[in-house]
């Protein structure tokens, strides 16, 4: 198993899923996938399948819940919703990412820092 890669991907994927659910409210898997692709401007080639194990993990962490419901086209679909714990986690994770992004950008563009 390529564990390291999954973990990094998983870390960012979790943030994306939580943000999507926080913004749009309950969504099914396909909706989440579509939304992530939209936001990333189709720049992120997401392996849609890998979303599902990630959703399961987020449920196990207690950050999201799932419920079977009816989709727009009236098919049975599983809807995911963010929990209180999930919102807290989202805030923490977002702050964390911002900090890391800031640090990394300083490395990516050192000139701006020194001037």
């Amino acid at each position: 198993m390529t564990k390291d890669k999954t973990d990094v991907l998983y870390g960012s994927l979790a943030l994306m899923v939580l943000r999507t659910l926080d913004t749009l409210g309950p969504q099914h898997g396909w909706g989440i996938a579509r939304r992530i692709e939209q936001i990333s401007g189709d720049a992120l080639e997401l392996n849609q399948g890998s979303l599902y194990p990630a959703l399961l993990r987020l449920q196990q962490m207690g950050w999201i819940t799932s419920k079977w419901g009816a989709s727009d086209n009236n098919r049975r679909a599983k809807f995911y919703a963010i929990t209180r714990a999930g919102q807290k986690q989202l805030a923490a994770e977002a702050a964390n990412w911002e900090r890391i992004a800031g640090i990394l950008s300083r490395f990516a563009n050192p000139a701006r820092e020194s001037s």
Partner: protein
Amino acid sequence: MTAIRVLFSRLAGLFGKRDLEPNLDEELDFHLQMEIAENIRKGMAPDQARTAALRRFGGVARVKETYRETHSLPVFQVLWQDLRYGFRVLRRSPGFSTLAILCLTLGIGSNAAVFTWIEGILLRPFPMVAHQDRMLAIAGWNRDVPGDPDVSWPDFQDFEKNCTLFDAFIVDRITGVTLAIGDKAEVARASIVSANYFGALGVRPILGRGFEPEENIGRNAHPVTVISYQLWQSRYKSDPDIIGKTQMLNGMPHTIIGVAPEGFYGTFVGWAMQFWVPLSMQEKFDPGGYKLEDRGETWIEGFVRLKPGVTLQQAQAEISAVAKRLETAYPATNRNRGVNLFPLWRTPFNNARTMFPTLGIALAVVISVLLIACANVGNLLLVRAFGRRHEMTIRLAVGAGRSRILKQLLTEGMILATIAAAGGFLLAYWCRNLFVLLLPARDGQRMNLPGEIDWRVLALSTGVCVIATLLFGLVPAMQTSKIDLTSALKSEAGGVVGGGRRRGLVRSGLVLVQVALSFVLLVGAGLLLQSLRGIQNISPGFSTKTLTTGVDFKVAGYDRQRSNNFQDALIDRLQSLAGVESASIERTTPFGYRSYSSAPIAVEGYETAPDQKLIVNYNEVGPGYLATMGIPLVSGREFTRADNETSQPVAIVNDVMAAQYWHGRDPVGSRLQVKGKWLQVVGVAKVSKYERLMETPQPFFFVPTRQNSAGLGLVIRTSLPLAVVAKALAHEVKALDENLAPGEVITMQEQVDRTTAVQRTAVMMLAVFGGLALALAAIGLYGVMSYTVSQSTRELGLRMALGADAGNLVRLIMSNGLALTVAGVVAGAAAALGLTRLMGTLLYKVSPRDPAVFASAFLVMIIAASAACFLPAWRATRTDPVRALRD
């Protein structure tokens, strides 16, 4: 927190699996349908839309696998998978599985059995007794007397009063009483105990009460007794109103005040107690008069319990300091005396100490057997691993991690070990009371040496089992992890042995270990056998055909006069029987449990150093004793009935004593002082063995029973069979007194043999397990040789084609096998030289390096090896060269 939540949800996932699959399928299917619909909306053809959706999604199967792994705990799933697979594999080769399980069951079972013995006999020997881990045995020492003498009651009380690190001081002195039932006398074992006995041990009588403090005090003042559950059941038919009833004990009615709980046998390793009497009854139950107020009378055996956290060293230091003070305060009795504390397994006054070396050997032996069994199973697994090489290679090739394969192999090992462990525990359960059967019965009773199965034994055995699994399970695993993918796949096609050389080395190594270990066991058995033969060849110095028994007339409460009359009458009646040559009496039977009288002596004309005390053992015997026992008289005369209370006190010394104190002069006619009384020496007897066959010739003397304490033992010299004498004796005793019955009648040979029981037990154990080990090693050797033959048919065929005849081939194979054996024997011999020294105390006049023993062990090993190699060698000669070369 989150981690715990995940764990729980995953654990739940292990069970709620049924809903998982359809739900997941539905969810993923929904996703794909949505994506396909979207693609079609974008203008793709249906086929194209579907392909694009699937590509976008990634592998459905892989997602499902990841999802499933995430859903529950993969460790368990993999384990479960391995378990099912392992069972299937093992079921497919029942012969292999049975053999492997059998080997391991023997190995694990014998270990568990010995653990139960060590636990039940040495470490926690007293069922139902609380805090045995803090109990120590207490015994005295005396600079003038070798061994571990007992302690006096006044001293014992002073220790109790002055020591602060102790919870309890417990007196427990074994004694015996004959309960006459019909014309058979039954010896009941009993203990004289301090009043705190039951309370301190945490044992509460199920009926009535234990002893009260005042029952320690007063000369024969408290004739009360607590009886054992077993006695209550068998003799009193579980009478619920037993409390307050009386039982005749040593001629005195005793009130039964309590019944001990079921499973409590007292605190004596070796014998179960039938009843207990308080300390105040000492005089009635312990020979030699009233001792409770005499500091010089050492007779108390017992235990102490330490306060929690106190070490043996601290306790010993404190009690030694008190003993030192007593030495100064009472120099007349306590000079050169002190006490020692012992852990229970080294208790000097019960059977713990005699059992210790035997159990130590047993432990070493079963560990060797387990190792041999492991090596054997390891070998079997290797053979099978070779057969499964193809399977393993394919598994590796399709991407199974080596650790995964290792896990699989270990799981298979674990299955074998678990089944074997279950069998082993069962074996141990059956064998837990077997140890006692290796020891001779006394007075028709078996010793009480039960094994104890508790969590410690189970934990230790499980540990052994796990180690065994790793030992034999890892061997093939290591081999497998060395498989070189390309060459293995290639060579599989060619049908040539790949990596066989290395594998062959490991297998040979395992056989070497087995041969070495069984050689060590054979040498051990040989040494013990040799030394046992040496011991049994020692002449005891008396006739072993003489019969011995006892009549305990204290039961009927005889006084001195009555017992004298009874003895004379009985001897007369016996000697008038046809076939009886002579009969006599003795206080102490040689080689018996009861110890001899011993006393400081002075010899007329022998100067002693001012600080020197001459302490010599002696026995009280009747007229004609020496002739009856077959002990030659060197000079002077035997005792006669004329040597009685009113005549001149006399003694017979042995020739060792004569040489030591009379310097070769004939002692007859000179005088000997014993306990301040002068005795006339009237005869010199030849030295004989008194307590053990191994003892060095000791100074010893005899005094007449009439002038000392009364006799208990009978000796009879006769040509009649034992059973006839026993019957006649019972008849004559009954004719003299309805209430009396003789004890067990045995030959002196039997009496002597009982003292060598420990040695014989050790020999028996080593012989049985040594034989087992030899058989296992032979099987291992056979396996390796037949494997070699089956793997080298091509080479053998070639040799035959080039003109080798059957003889050549047999020689080739045999020499291979024997070379392996010799290498094993050399390794074993090196180990044996180191290990046999540990048997020191069990060996008698045999060097731990006895060349004859090593040579015969070698011979046995070679014979077994030849037998094991012969079949494969013979099979080699049946190789068809044409077929071997064509294949």
